[in-house]
């Protein structure tokens, strides 16, 4: 994966086997009234370059832009959260990938990004960061 070679970038991957076909899952990922039911209130339009907002119940608003659309297969949008305190701000990209399986769909969500305060701090660090964090996270999971 190309993103993993950039040391300052960190990602979250969530994968799940969904007992529904890709076309149905695609609707839930791309139709605004359906997105609102599982994710957040939104003004999403399935068109590359479209800017939209996701509004959380907590009052927070995410600034998003559609980056990739391949029906029934791949959807990507930016997921940025502006906040005066860098500890809360986030710049990231969310990518959903759908793979048909015998039982339905394998759904993979990868969120890749960084916090602005980390960007600068990470800037001068070496390529060793990524593997370092991977190892640390493994340690932390075992310790939890």
């Amino acid at each position: 994966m190309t993103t993993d070679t950039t040391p300052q970038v960190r990602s979250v991957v969530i994968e799940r086997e969904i007992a529904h076909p890709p076309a149905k899952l695609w609707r839930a990922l791309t139709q605004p009234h359906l997105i609102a039911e599982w994710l957040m209130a939104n003004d999403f339009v399935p068109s590359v370059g479209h800017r939209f907002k996701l509004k959380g119940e907590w009052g927070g608003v995410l600034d998003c832009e559609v980056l990739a659309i391949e029906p029934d297969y791949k959807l990507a949008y930016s997921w940025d959260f502006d906040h005066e305190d860098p500890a809360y701000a986030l710049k990231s990209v969310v990518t959903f990938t759908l793979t048909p399986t015998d039982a339905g769909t394998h759904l993979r969500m990868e969120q890749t990004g960084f916090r602005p305060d980390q960007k600068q701090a990470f800037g001068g660090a070496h390529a060793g960061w990524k593997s370092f964090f991977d190892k640390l996270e493994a340690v932390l999971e075992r310790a939890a």
Partner: protein
Amino acid sequence: MNPQAPHDLLFRTLADPTRRALFERLCRDGEQTVGALTAQAGVSQPAVSKHLAALKLAGLVRDRHEGRQTHYTAQLGALGPLIDWTQQMAGFWEGRFDKLEDLLNRMDQ
């Protein structure tokens, strides 16, 4: 107080590869004496002690004196600012995917 200061210190402290290797070793192997750490660090004991002092200042390790030996342990909690958002987001998405599955179960084909 600059709220970013603790993060800066954490990053600066871990930016040194020798120091990072010492911290990794403590994470992996648990409590170690300065002597045991020096044996594998490839640098002198004073250098190791200096690195450990920097890690301690950043809250990344804790020391314990026993006789003439000083034992060091990694303090994983100090990494909180670094791992935070990915862990928070992982929890967020797991919850949303539960809702997504509920929705799919209610939807027409």
